[in-house]
């Protein structure tokens, strides 16, 4: 499959910065595949493929035994700008709810990415303090269970949405995927969340969450959230 350059190129990190090409400096050329790859922060294999299929401007010097390659930095930068579509600013919330779509060809990775997208929908709602924002991540019959301040709570997921909305924004939450296990049509995700805050969460709280998901109508939906609030 042809790589989606619009998404690939937009992730490029320029070690040399975006300024005008420094034409009179000794480093104006990149003298090997290794240097070109390092400049684009990609593997040599990737930049070779970009030359073959995407027109990455790479030049050759003829020698008796083997040609050598080199590239002009300003040409590489110009090429990259042309291949970067819609370089719009992405807000933090959007970045959370829409992780970059990778061209995953491995069947496991496709499911893995779909599961993390569902989880990012939950995280975006938690961060924004908006229960409706996370609703699409859940199955309509989903439930929750766990202890909150020593009191056991079990019930409908609607209470999560209400709690999150009442809690308000938690802009500093730091979620980490501790485990994602996929078994065909079901999956379990262990999420560790630090720096929970808000009207109900308090400040700098920590929660361990275990989500069970079901692949339902082609989409991964959370069917259960099990939580443990850690003592502060």
């Amino acid at each position, binding site marked *: 499959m042809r790589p989606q350059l619009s998404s690939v190129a937009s992730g490029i990190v320029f070690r040399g910065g975006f300024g005008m090409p420094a034409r009179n400096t000794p480093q104006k050329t990149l003298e090997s595949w290794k240097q070109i790859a390092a400049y684009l922060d990609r593997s040599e294999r990737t930049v070779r493929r970009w030359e073959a299929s995407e027109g990455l401007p790479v030049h050759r010097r003829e020698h008796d035994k083997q040609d050598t390659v080199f590239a002009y930095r300003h040409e590489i930068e110009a090429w990259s700008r042309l291949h970067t579509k819609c370089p719009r600013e992405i807000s933090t919330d959007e970045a959370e709810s829409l992780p970059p779509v990778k061209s995953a060809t491995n069947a496991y990775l496709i499911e893995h990415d779909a599961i993390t997208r569902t989880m990012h929908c939950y995280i975006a709602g938690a961060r924004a303090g908006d229960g409706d924002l996370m609703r699409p991540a859940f199955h309509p019959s989903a439930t929750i*269970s766990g202890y909150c301040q020593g009191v*056991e709570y*079990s019930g409908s997921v609607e209470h999560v949405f209400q709690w999150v909305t009442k809690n308000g924004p938690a802009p500093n939450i730091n979620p980490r995927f501790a485990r994602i296990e996929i078994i*065909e049509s*079901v999956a*379990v995700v262990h999420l560790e969340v630090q720096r929970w805050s808000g009207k109900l969460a308090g400040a700098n709280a920590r929660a361990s969450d*275990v989500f069970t998901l079901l692949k339902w109508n082609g989409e991964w939906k959370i069917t259960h959230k099990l939580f*443990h609030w850690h003592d502060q």
Partner: protein
Amino acid sequence: MTKSEYLTEYDGIVKSVQMYIDGSKQGKSELMRPAFHPDASFFGYAGDQLAIGTQFLFDWIDKNGPAPKIEPRVVSVDILESIAVVRLEVSGWSGNLAGSGVRMSDLFTLLKMPSGWKIIQKAFHWYA
């Protein structure tokens, strides 16, 4: 958690899962019911049908009848303070509804209650 604390919790968790196994083997839901939390949920596909609710599970177990040759294996037990996850692999399922030689993967989540570890959800994948 010290080593002995961990083993105590581990034993309590496996004990509840064993009640599910015993009920499955004998085809008697009454043996597994005490292991489940009153608000427990149940999710998975039985063929094309989405099965929801522990009542579906208990009815199914009773109708299926004995499955004497099931081979259950506890693949993983993860404990996070008051909550836990168990993955159980069961091969050799048989019975009135199961057919014969069927395999199932189960994900149990458990909650620690004053009365012991209770299954709060069973999610499963049935290898048709």
